[in-house]
């Protein structure tokens, strides 16, 4: 699920790769200026591909593998503390 919409992707690949393949070009907007960002390093050092996975925000989608039933949300600006419990 990406932002509530079901998405079918091949398992066993990094989440960031799967999302890019599925056509997601903007992964998040920065908390500072709202500028669009997308994966840059694919190896866990740039933190540009941060997404919310199963309710946990700021996950590096390049370091996490796609699993069945994953609920992913893109992050718009800073994470919402209220929504994440």
């Amino acid at each position: 699920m990406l932002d509530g919409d079901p998405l079918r992707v091949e398992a066993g690949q990094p989440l960031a790769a799967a999302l890019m393949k599925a056509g997601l070009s903007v992964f998040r907007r920065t908390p500072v200026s709202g500028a669009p960002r997308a994966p840059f390093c694919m190896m866990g050092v740039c933190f540009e591909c941060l997404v919310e996975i199963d309710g946990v925000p700021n996950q590096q989608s390049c370091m996490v593998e796609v699993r069945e039933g994953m609920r992913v949300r893109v992050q718009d600006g800073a994470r919402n503390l209220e929504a994440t419990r």
Partner: protein
Amino acid sequence: MNISTDPGSGFTHDVIVIGGGPAGMSAAMTAAEYGCKVALLDEQPRPGGQIYRNVTRAPAALRELLGPDYQRGSGLAERLQRSGVECHFDTTVWDVGQDLTVTAQCHGRSTQLRPRQLIAATGAMERPSPIPGWTLPGVLNAGAAQILLKSSGTVPSGATVLVGGGPLLLLVACQLLDAGARVAALVQTTPTSNLLRALPHLGRASLTPSYLAKGAGLLQKLKRAGVPFYRDAREIRIEGESGVSALTFRAGGTCVSIAADAVLLHHGVVPNTQLARLLRLEHRWDDTQLAWQPCVDAWFETSLPGLRIPGDGASIAGALAAEASGALAALGAAAAIGRVDCSTQEREARAWRKLLRKHSRVRRFLDELYRPPEWLVAPPDETIVCRCEEVDAGTIRHMAILGCQGPNQTKFFSRCGMGPCQGRQCAITVSQMLARAHFKSVQEVGSYRIRPPLKPIPLGSIAALASPSVSRSACKEEFE
């Protein structure tokens, strides 16, 4: 994670290895061969590091495309599986104490391990290339594009332009061509004058001719494919609104604009020193590799006794040299805890040292030939240097004028380096920019102080540490 602590000593392992790339796999297997109880921790789901990423799962056709240098990783990974090393993947190390206690998170829970000797094979990362527009979606490091190919078989869609210099740039260009990408141009930023710097080192490099032959082969392949080449490019800008649309630059006195859907940047790789900086290890600025290197001895021991850093995390030398240095670090660790005696250690080390020399010969030539241009650390004022906090080059220069002497002061005043990447993407640029502004050496200017956690982790993960029995049994369940 099912971990038992030796009640007498308080240690959980003889040797812990952080990182499952060539240096880490080699270190872990070698230490196990000498009877050490070894654990290997890696963030990724499978062994390989970045160079051999996904090698145990990549389809045969993809492995074929990536070539024998990549396939070498399968052999290492298979041997690791049979070696008796306790492997913990999906495990992120987020703190290491001065007593070498390792705190790591797996599946949302943290746990602590304590080895007698710690080998941190944390590898390299690509040097940041702060040029205008480098934060736009569609701009990736060239190595990132290669990781996408290795891990999911995908290539960038549309016109792809590669920008920068170095062996990896050429390799990625060739692999993308083979994989069906549309490589619109190769824009080399390497100054022509580098050739003169490199020439005196060609003789030594040619003693290990395989590297030079590979390089020549890549260049030939790109020429045959008709990929447009630009040399000594400068004043590079990436244009676009919510994604890349074009690349503009000057080369040979003319201005060039190329329409692009993806731009891949590369200016070589540098040691990832985040863990070394966390532990306040001694570092030296290497003016040939233009990078920080943790100081290590012949057995790769750092300024913190018991902590060893082999492989590209210590100094860039490539995957084969990393295997050798990993083994040497393991021999050092095994000797330090009495698993091998001095004479055996020296005897066993001989072959590894020979290999290390063999694979290091080409390095100086490559370092000089592909030395990044000076302008890379003198970006135009509006260029973002700190991607996380969006601090531009003009602000950093302004900080220097205000009197900030080093990166930490600059960080306090401008937030540069304070975002989630914790300075990984800006530290090296900021240190070099401040050194230039103050007419000091980079060594004098220093680098950011790094604090735990090394990666953002949920508070719940730390809370679980308070009751180790709970965290361990829970983690164990998830492993089973």
